[in-house]
């Protein structure tokens, strides 16, 4: 080729290439490739439906509308027509459509093989096994339920009762100590709180805007009483060790050392009595003289609350038309009855019992299943007493232990005896939706449908001021091999020829609705929710100052540093762990990589000689040791560190596993003086730089 030929070829080639579609098509294809990689999921198209139902994963029974696309739930949206939660959502309920298909979701029944590994089995095998184990166990059966609002519990208690066992328990919760306290003060019904009609609420220890009570309802009430840019019609005072989410919404924060709720409440009672608030009932004089010892200065010394704030709180309550005092625990379980007793006493002083915006004496949920135990009776029983007795060998270990909708291995203190009970039990069965720590320790794991996949119900949760009844309706098919737990237990009872009086879940729900006078059809077809203001005749309340006195004798916290646990629903519950879509809600002052973060104020940090970001070792009274990362936050008491609950999971999926430490590991079970209630003692810890 000569030079001319080469140039011709080069020029011709260039022109040809530019004129041909090769370059341009390649460029357009490049655009197409870069947005259509095969490994990035495509959207599924289909008909959208919006079906109202309620959450069974969120403890407050949040009412939501599930949006399904071609039958698959994709969103949960607050249900504005729900008369309880008024469209308010929680971070947990908002993540439920995704939780439904999360990697931790159980897909098939699992049986533990002799080598310890799980083997997937069919439902037929599982049911046969279940029946066989139950028959073998005879009356030596125990069961625990983590879902106190569901009527599925009645089916379980009926089965146990008919097999001759009375070992059915609820997981420890917020209501158990409250029920003890209310009864001690003479209450005959169930303790309720009419928060939305109160004009001034003092919440001591109870994070009412994040985790206490019917939190979605509390938040919607907060919304309605706090108009945007307007004047609030309700004051909220919050006492807690940390400026948590509730404190952020409160008008006044009372920085209170963990475990000093009693003293604070007695101090408030004293100030109110001095201010002339002396609602009469038997025992007033004795209570007043007992409370008189709790002068603002003394209370300030015990609790750490500045005198001025204590007085401001008392003044706000005294001046309010419809004040309401609520006591509760930061953890939501393992709390004491004592503070609730004093809270009731203060409400009595203020005339806030069975009055709009006050405490409500409500009827307990009623059982409709034949041979079932009444809710109130179950509420009186203490699971931890049972497990500790089994662990100590004082009670015979059950031949069969059934764990329903609960994760006690994670959510109870290490010395609760749960671990021992599980290992001593002849056979253990977990009925759950997610692969929890407890599931991993059981012999048989049965995948349960979620609330949005099966019939279930939400009977008045604790914290409500009204009787409410909502149905969970199946808006989608159960995920993979999950099955309705209610139907499973009913079928089991039928297999065993036990009498329930109901043949399936819809009938059970119908009977409940009927008993309450609720419109079952509308609830079933439209997702309507029933509410009723059902106040009982006033209970003969009295100031049980002796009970208060003995509860007040509880030991104070020890150790150099107090731990203030924080519960946030974004972290899920013990049953769900952290929902995949909530990991980003977990803040950098709660979790850092694989370490829990301990918040402390700069004075505490200086005392411990730590800087933000340093690793510190916390050693609890029970010798449990955890390593955490320090963060500086001024909204916390001196000598106190806060740790968020819901971390430290060893089961579930990558979204929860191996992140931080379980704050419950630092607690141990104590007994409250007087009531004998098992309470989670958050004894102080020793802290040092790691």
């Amino acid at each position, binding site marked *: 080729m000569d*030079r001319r030929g080469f140039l011709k070829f080069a020029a011709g080639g260039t022109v040809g290439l530019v004129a041909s579609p090769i370059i341009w098509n390649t*460029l357009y294809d*490049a*655009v197409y*490739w*870069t947005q259509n990689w095969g490994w990035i999921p495509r959207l599924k198209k289909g008909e959208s439906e919006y079906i109202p139902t309620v959450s069974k994963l969120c403890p407050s029974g949040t009412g939501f509308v599930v949006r399904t696309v071609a039958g698959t739930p994709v969103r949960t949206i607050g249900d504005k027509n729900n008369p309880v939660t008024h469209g308010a959502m929680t971070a947990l309920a908002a993540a439920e459509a995704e939780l439904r298909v999360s990697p931790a979701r159980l897909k098939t029944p699992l049986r533990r093989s002799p080598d310890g590994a799980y083997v997937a089995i069919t439902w037929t095998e599982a049911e046969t096994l279940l029946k066989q184990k139950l028959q073998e166990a005879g009356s030596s059966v125990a069961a625990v339920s983590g879902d106190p609002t569901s009527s599925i519990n009645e089916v379980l208690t009926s089965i146990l009762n008919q097999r001759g066992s009375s070992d059915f328990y609820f997981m420890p919760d917020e209501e158990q100590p409250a029920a003890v306290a209310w009864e001690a003060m003479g209450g005959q019904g169930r303790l309720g709180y009419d928060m939305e009609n109160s004009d001034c609420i003092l919440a001591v220890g109870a994070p009412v805007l994040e985790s206490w009570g019917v939190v979605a309802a509390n938040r919607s009430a907060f919304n309605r009483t706090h108009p945007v840019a307007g004047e609030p019609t309700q004051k909220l005072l919050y006492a807690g060790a940390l400026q948590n989410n509730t404190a952020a919404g409160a008008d006044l924060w009372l920085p209170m050392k963990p475990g000093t709720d009693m003293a604070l409440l007695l101090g408030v009672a004293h100030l109110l009595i001095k201010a002339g608030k002396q609602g009469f009932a038997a025992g007033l004089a004795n209570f007043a003289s007992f409370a008189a010892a709790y002068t603002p200065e003394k209370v300030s010394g015990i609790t750490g609350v500045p005198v001025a704030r204590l007085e401001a709180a008392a003044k706000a309550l005294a001046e309010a038309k419809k004040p309401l005092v609520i006591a509760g625990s930061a953890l939501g379980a393992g709390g004491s009855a004592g503070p609730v007793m004093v809270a009731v006493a203060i409400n009595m002083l203020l005339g806030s019992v069975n009055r709009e915006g006050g405490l409500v004496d409500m009827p307990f949920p009623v059982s409709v299943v034949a041979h079932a135990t009444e809710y109130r009776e179950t509420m009186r029983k203490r699971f931890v007493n049972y497990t500790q007795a089994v662990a100590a060998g004082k009670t015979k270990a059950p031949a069969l232990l059934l764990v329903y909708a609960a994760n006690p291995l994670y959510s109870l203190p290490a010395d609760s005896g749960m671990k021992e009970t599980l290992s001593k039990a002849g056979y253990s069965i977990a009925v759950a939706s997610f692969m929890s720590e407890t599931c991993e320790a059981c012999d048989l794991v049965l995948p349960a449908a979620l609330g949005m996949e099966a019939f279930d119900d939400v009977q008045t949760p604790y914290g409500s001021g009204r009787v409410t009844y909502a149905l969970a309706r199946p808006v989608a098919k159960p995920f993979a091999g999950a099955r309705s737990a209610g139907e499973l237990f009913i079928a089991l009872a039928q297999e065993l020829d036990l009498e329930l009086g109901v043949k399936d879940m819809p009938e059970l729900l119908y009977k409940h609705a009927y008993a309450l006078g609720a419109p079952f059809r509308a609830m079933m077809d439209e997702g309507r929710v029933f509410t009723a203001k059902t106040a009982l005749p006033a209970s003969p309340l009295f100031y049980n100052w002796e009970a208060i006195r003995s509860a007040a004798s509880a030991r104070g916290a020890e150790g150099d540093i107090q731990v203030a646990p924080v519960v946030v629903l974004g972290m899920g519950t013990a049953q769900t762990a952290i929902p995949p879509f909530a990991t980003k809600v977990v803040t950098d002052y709660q979790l850092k990589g694989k370490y829990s973060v301990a918040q402390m104020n700069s004075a505490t940090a200086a005392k411990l000689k730590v800087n933000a970001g340093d690793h510190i070792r916390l050693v609890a009274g029970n010798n449990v040791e955890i390593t955490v990362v320090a963060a500086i936050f001024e909204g916390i008491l001196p000598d106190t560190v806060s740790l968020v609950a819901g971390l430290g999971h060893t089961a579930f999926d990558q979204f929860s596993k191996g992140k931080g430490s379980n704050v419950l590991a630092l607690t141990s079970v104590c007994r409250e003086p007087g009531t004998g209630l098992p309470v989670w003692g958050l004894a102080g810890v020793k802290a040092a730089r790691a």
Partner: protein
Amino acid sequence: MDYSKPVDAELFPEGCERCSLTKFTGWMSILGVIFLWGLYAAVRVLGFGLGETGMDDYFGFGLWITFDLAVIALGAGAFFTGALRYILNIDELKNIVNLAAVIGFLCYTGAMMILVLDIGQPIRCWFGYWYPNVHSMLTEVIFCITCYCIVLILEFVPLVLENRQLMKRPFIHALAHNFHVYMPIFAGIGAFLSTFHQGSLGGMYGVLFGRPYLFREGFFIWPWTFFLFVLSAVSSGPMFTVLVCTLMEKMSGRKLVSWDVKQLMGKVGGTMLIVYTVFKCLDSWYWATDLLAGQGLTFDQMFHGWIYGKWLFWMEHAFIIIPMVVLLIKPLREKPWIFYLMLFLTCASITINRYVLTVQGLAQPVMPFDSWYSYAPNWAEWASCFLVFAYAAMVLSLAYRYTPMFPQEAELNRK
């Protein structure tokens, strides 16, 4: 064949000695290993995504952008020397202009390599031409840099063609000659393009009115940083060329460019440095005392802790003021080590400038409730920068060995 000479001696420039091929191969192998390490990082980044780097949502720009800006500024010797040589006809510069062009070529192609890694969707890189946003300084940068890169290739090609053996072919000889004839045009286009994108690179930062650390007022559509970048590039570019030349001399043990030429380059850069230093200090002064206050901020708030402390700010300024003064004093600038040191300080200051604008400018939290976060480049970012270093060193070594890059070399080394 003369066995006393390396086997590839026939390829060497006329009258120049080179080391043995074995030694050269050894040197190239060392560079090759570094190159492969960088290539591994690049493959990971392209294969898995930019998550392989140490960058994050707060530091969307990091080492790579700093590197790009620095090498583009330091590579400015190519266009500036070229313009002076071919347009203003300063003839002595012909002795170093080849090197300047090769450095420019290497800096720009290197920067392009890094940019391919740095953008999240390299396959879409041509969108800048297809869907241009004429308001964006970056659009201008994309236009000018790619065009200028082509110009640099055109400036580099004739040098390759001038290889002794290649030149023996009549076609190549004619081609090389033609290239030389048109060189002033390339130089002119290059000067225009390069001035603009150097400026636009600075403008990219100055227009960010959401970033008080970076935002500057300016003239017409160009913020002051536009002009500062041009000035800093034309002052440091020639200096960097001299430094590279000197480094090559030390490594090869041969004199490549005469001291006079180097001094001339220093004079060129130094003159520009005076202009730059004056304007840079005025700009910093106005920014610190006036501009920030208008946004409710103080000078102190722009700095934090050790890594984002004020020392970098003072160092950046000191490293241009000191060379400016020292280079003005004849007895000092005539001492080689002082001369080279001052050149180095200037280049360092320009690099610090590019770093603080890129990293500290993003680190400074604008929302009062936001925090300072720190950024540290990870191995993948370092490795890919070393990829470019290795690439540049290899090309430069080849160019030195086989092309008549230094017209004075034979003369200066005559025994």
